[in-house]
């Protein structure tokens, strides 16, 4: 699919700039040109498609669906899928959380949404397709959704409502005034320019991260020796999974910046499962997110939430390394 782009990169670096294909610099530059362009094309396409999906499934409709339907335990799974298709913005997580809980959706089901939403997002998916191919992307997405399902279900088993902030409990007790909302009546073609614009905005927003991530990746590709991680960092040892996850949890990195670096880790000998676990912990949990959630939850609840998700990510890392 991207052969033409590879030809272009070869031509640009080896012929136009005249940098040899056998030099470190040539390899690194070629990789950089090829990857940046490929990723940007993929990003735009995926974000655009998700934009179309989202105009038909706004979050209010998903909430209504979860609220009305009797799903016999499947509500965790659906909530997790909805989390995956909704675009994630860290500043929306608090309004989302309250909206769900206020709408009578159980806390565990809300957590399913909250776990998957940052984990499986359009930017991460596009980066994954570009860097690891369709199969690995599918594994990432499916396991992200399962993780949200299981994590939410587990959290739903504890009695966590008393651990919400006082003002959230108040909201739950008093029914608040419902502001009037004008339903979208515009046709698909009327919405199209705006979907295109917002896809561009998202691509522009992550452009810098993509370039920095790929630049670091490209440099490492050219200079880090093969099997470096195997030889020096324990490669496939079991303890690398928890270690990678624990390092990644407090980190806050844009998926766009982190995937190219992870790709190099994998190319140089880190097992894909460990890499996926690292990635999930980086985008799924972070200190900034915890700070935001502090407005609606007690510290204890945040700790339980992070703890359960961290454990789930570690477990999935082990499972990947066995399966892949």
């Amino acid at each position, binding site marked *: 699919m991207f052969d033409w782009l590879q030809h272009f990169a070869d031509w640009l670096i080896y012929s136009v700039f005249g940098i040899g294909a056998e030099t470190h610099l040539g390899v690194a530059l070629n990789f950089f040109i090829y990857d940046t362009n490929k990723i940007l094309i993929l990003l735009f396409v995926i974000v655009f498609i998700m934009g179309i999906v989202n105009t038909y499934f706004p979050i209010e409709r998903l909430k209504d669906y979860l609220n009305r339907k009797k799903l016999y335990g499947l509500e965790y799974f659906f909530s997790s899928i909805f989390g995956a298709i909704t675009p994630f*913005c*860290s500043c929306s997580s*608090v*309004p989302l959380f309250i909206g769900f809980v*206020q709408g009578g959706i159980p806390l565990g089901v809300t957590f399913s949404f909250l776990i998957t939403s940052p984990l499986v997002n359009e930017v991460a998916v596009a980066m994954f397709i570009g860097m690891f191919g369709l199969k690995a992307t599918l594994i990432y997405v499916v396991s992200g959704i399962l993780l949200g399902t299981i994590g939410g279900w587990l959290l739903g088993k504890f009695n966590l409502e008393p651990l919400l902030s006082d003002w959230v409990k108040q909201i739950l007790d008093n029914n608040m005034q*419902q*502001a*009037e909302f004008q339903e979208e009546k515009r046709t698909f073609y009327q919405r199209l320019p705006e979907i295109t614009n917002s896809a561009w*905005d998202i691509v522009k927003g992550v452009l810098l991260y993509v370039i920095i991530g790929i630049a670091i990746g490209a440099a490492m590709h050219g200079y880090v020796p093969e099997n470096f991680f195997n030889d020096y960092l324990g490669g496939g040892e079991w303890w690398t999974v928890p270690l990678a996850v624990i390092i990644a949890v407090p980190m806050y990195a844009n998926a766009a910046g982190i995937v190219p670096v992870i790709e190099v880790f994998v190319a140089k000998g880190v097992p894909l499962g460990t890499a996926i676990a690292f990635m999930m912990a980086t985008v799924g949990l972070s200190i900034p997110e915890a700070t935001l959630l502090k407005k609606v939850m007690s510290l204890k609840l945040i700790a339980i939430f992070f703890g359960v998700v961290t454990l789930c990510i570690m477990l999935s890392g082990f499972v990947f390394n066995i399966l892949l």
Partner: protein
Amino acid sequence: MSKVIKILGTGCPKCKSMTSVVNDVVSENNIEATIEKVEDIMEIMKFNVMSTPALVIDDVITIKGRVPSKAEVLALLN
């Protein structure tokens, strides 16, 4: 009649771009309106919105979760 415009958002990049779009529309078209930024999450939740930024004109939520174009905001204000 002067309109009351409220922009709900906790300060993410999207909320900032919505604010600048609305500011531009109001000043370019000499619309009589007061623009208020609502950044406190507790206040935002009183409007029952689940995705920010949201645009509230005279207490009616008109847009939520996305940044509108100038033309769209102008149409909403007229």
